[in-house]
């Protein structure tokens, strides 16, 4: 179930769009935030009911974009490392391995304390500052081992 707060947020977001169904991505983002980083089946049903859509259409929109995590709970910090061409050329592979080592999990896993989830993503549009990653809503750029240590230290 969506919280009342999320419902209000979605209602407010609806005003930005020409019709209700156009707001589906915004509504899903709010719903995912509300749930704490992922979407459950009921969230998609609630969004569908609010936007007068068929649940499967909402499901299709959510499943198309990697930023929605359908029925995959994530930790408090969702670390998404870019692995596209620019980042790869500048050492993304190494950064990913280093992250795995320092968090002691494999890509796609969550730490036992539910603090970090590590995943790789396609281009986040920040090639000029490669290699880079996104943690929750923030970008971290020009990554080196040292920088990664600092970032993790701050979050822990």
């Amino acid at each position, binding site marked *: 179930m969506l919280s009342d707060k999320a419902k209000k947020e979605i209602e407010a977001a609806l005003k930005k769009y020409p019709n209700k169904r156009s707001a589906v991505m915004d509504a899903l983002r709010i719903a995912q935030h509300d749930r704490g980083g992922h979407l459950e*089946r009921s969230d*998609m*049903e609630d969004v569908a009911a609010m936007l007068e859509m*068929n*649940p*499967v*259409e909402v*499901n*299709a929109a959510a*499943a*198309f974009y990697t930023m929605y995590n359908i029925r995959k709970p994530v930790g408090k910090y969702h670390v998404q490392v870019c692995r596209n061409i620019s980042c790869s050329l500048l050492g993304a592979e190494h950064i990913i391995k280093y992250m795995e080592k320092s968090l002691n999990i494999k890509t796609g896993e969550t730490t036992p304390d539910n603090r970090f989830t590590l995943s790789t993503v396609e281009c986040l549009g920040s090639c000029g500052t490669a290699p880079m990653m996104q943690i929750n809503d923030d970008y971290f750029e020009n990554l080196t081992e040292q920088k990664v240590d600092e970032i993790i230290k701050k979050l822990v």
Partner: protein
Amino acid sequence: MATIKINGKEITVEDNTLILDAARKAGYEIPTFCYQADLMGIGSCRMCLVEIEGQRKLQPSCITPVLHGMSINTDSSTVASARAGVLEFLLANHALDCPVCDKGGECELQDMVHKYGPRTGRHAEPKFKFHEKDYVLSQVIIKNSNRCVQCMKCVRVCREVVGRNVLGALGRGDHQEPTSFNRTFLDCDMDGNCIEVCPVGCFMRLPYRYKSRPWDLKGADTICPYCATGCRMVIEERDGQLLRARAQLGVGLNSETLCARGRFGCDFVNSAERITKPLIRHQAATWAEALASVKDGFSGKEGKHIGGVAAATLTNEELYLFQKLMRTVFGSPNIDSSSRWNSDAASAFIHAASMNEGGVSIFDCMEADTVLIIGSHISDENPVSEYIVRRISSNRRMNLIIASPRAMKLDSSANVKLRHLPAAEKAVLDAITLVINAGKLSEAEKLKAIKDSKMVDLLTAAGVGVDEITDIAKRLSASQSVAIVAGTEFLRFPDGTSGLALLKDVLKNLGKKVTVMPTLDRCNQRGAWEMGVHPSFGPGYATAEKGMDTEALLEAAMRGEIDALYVVGEDIISDYPDREFARTALSKVRFLVVQDIFMSETAKLAHVILPGASFSEKEGMFTNQEGRAQSIRKLLALPGKAKRDLDIIRAVGELFDGSFGPKNAVLVLDEIRQVNPMYSDVSLLFNNKKNSDNRLDNRAALVKCAAGVLPAAGEFASKAVSSRMEEHSFALVTGSHLFHLGRFSRKSETLLGLIKGATVEICEDDAARLGFVSGEKVKVKGKNHEVLATLKTSTGSKSRVAFIPESFEDAEVNRFFRRGEGVPRVSITRANQ
């Protein structure tokens, strides 16, 4: 017009023609997966890539329109290698389990790889799998997404044609899977159109699973035996069992679509309950004994004490011979084709819908500026007609107006939806006519006319607001051409026919082109009337001595005046709107012969039962609601000692007149063509080729104008209901269910698997007011009868209307009715109260 070159051949086509269509017109084949005429183009499969001179990249021909002067190459080596490349990628993750796949042998991917594909694969990587085991998506669909080629035709057909929109494309790229919300069990129309359009074995029929291979099937191109839309389909058998029915892209007015009844409901012919031998007083007998008994029963009886009822599910040939038997051999004018409504209602409907003026194509109707659908729950009653309306109305600017007490799926395509009280078609139409007429007056007069007391009465009777009516009237007035689709409610409540005739005339007088298309719920109802199975006219609506209809026959039987009654295929007891009366009356008939394929309630009372044939065991012709004459083809052998209905009717005739005939279906057809000018030159030729231009409208099959002039319709008493009711009180309406129509569907295993027990449908608001939830058992109680049924709620239906379908044995809905009474009132309460 644009002139283009395709493979060096010059061709001129209309502007905006797709390259694909132009190339096919020029005679070049271009393979496709995702392209389908009538569905929105998405250009996703890349099979149709062609080379355009001057453009560096290959272009998808299914979404690229031609430009004047274009030079296109469809079979260069670049194109060939692109096709092979696309197929190689499709096979990269394809399961390649053809030996166990139901689609093997009729799979488009197989065919294409065979024709264009790479002979070897280079992919060494492990294949991506959506899931390990096939999963069941609904009672009729089993799914294997690992075989998907991502053409998304299933998703589009569900959204654009069926209008359910319950399938979605989940994921992206080669991980995209067309399925239901969260892969949950589907609650949809179960029509299997997604299975039909699937080029591979991704969507499969559950009832047909592992039953056969396509090359082991023998098929016949025939017509669906359920509603009067007249869908062309191929039925296929193996070892004498009908295994499946399928539609064909570009063939028949339905093209690739069918509804649940047509696609899954034809297995009733396999039923073990079929009558396979003649019975005399329910004891097995030989044909000679049975016919001798019939001869005894009819000998020496006067024509006026004999009657005949033949169902509107028989072929035209059988119906023609039946009326000939009754009229010439027995000298009896007492014949009818329905027990649900009386023959005067049928005459009035034929008159109002101008059915005697010849056939009206549904595609012509959909060319009109405004289409008004009234008196028909078209979504449940004629699903494929509904698909055609949805498909066309979403592609052009037009008004679609739906007037009905119950909400329906097609409402989402409508510009105006009017919810009126049951049996108020006349009030609605009269009110519209009044406002249209007032449109000719000055403003002040107009206001007065609209506010006058007659208008108020009409609005109250219909339970609608003046704004809704004026909106409809405005749209009709502003249109150059109007099509009215009139359904079976006009037969149940015949007072509406005068309203229909009046509106038609008023619109015509305003200089508009008006067409009326009837929608009917028995496959050959129109044919039955046109063959003269009606007590007031003969074949071709020719004037005939007036006889008794089913209702009058029952009344006469009640008085003990019917000596012999011959009933073919009709179940009077189950259908006549007063079950007990029909049963008592029929039990007083001195000699009752029933010819049927199942032991119906009426057959249980029969002295002699003659086993007939189903639609799959005989040849003949059906006339659909539009007036399109179409052939049905024989596929199966007759079960046991059953005989074709035509042979039985002829044999009965020969008992009394050795020369009675014609002797076979072909000769009967010849006689029909001579006797009935409507059929003199209808073409029954099948075009079995896939039409490249997807032209579905076979005009040569439409019947022509009748020679006879129909007598004007009489007056009918109104059965209108008032809107004032007690708290639990509802007006009961009835009709066909989406999955069940008539009696045949109740013997179909697959359809019984979809829904078995009766439902009662009321609107959501009423349910909420009374504290009911959808799915709970409720007691529906009328003055004469009560039943337990599962409650179903619908959004947007008229309040205080309860709907119980006609076909369910556990809710014998005709028991609620009493002769001479109008729409029954029922109360709905919790089952345990």
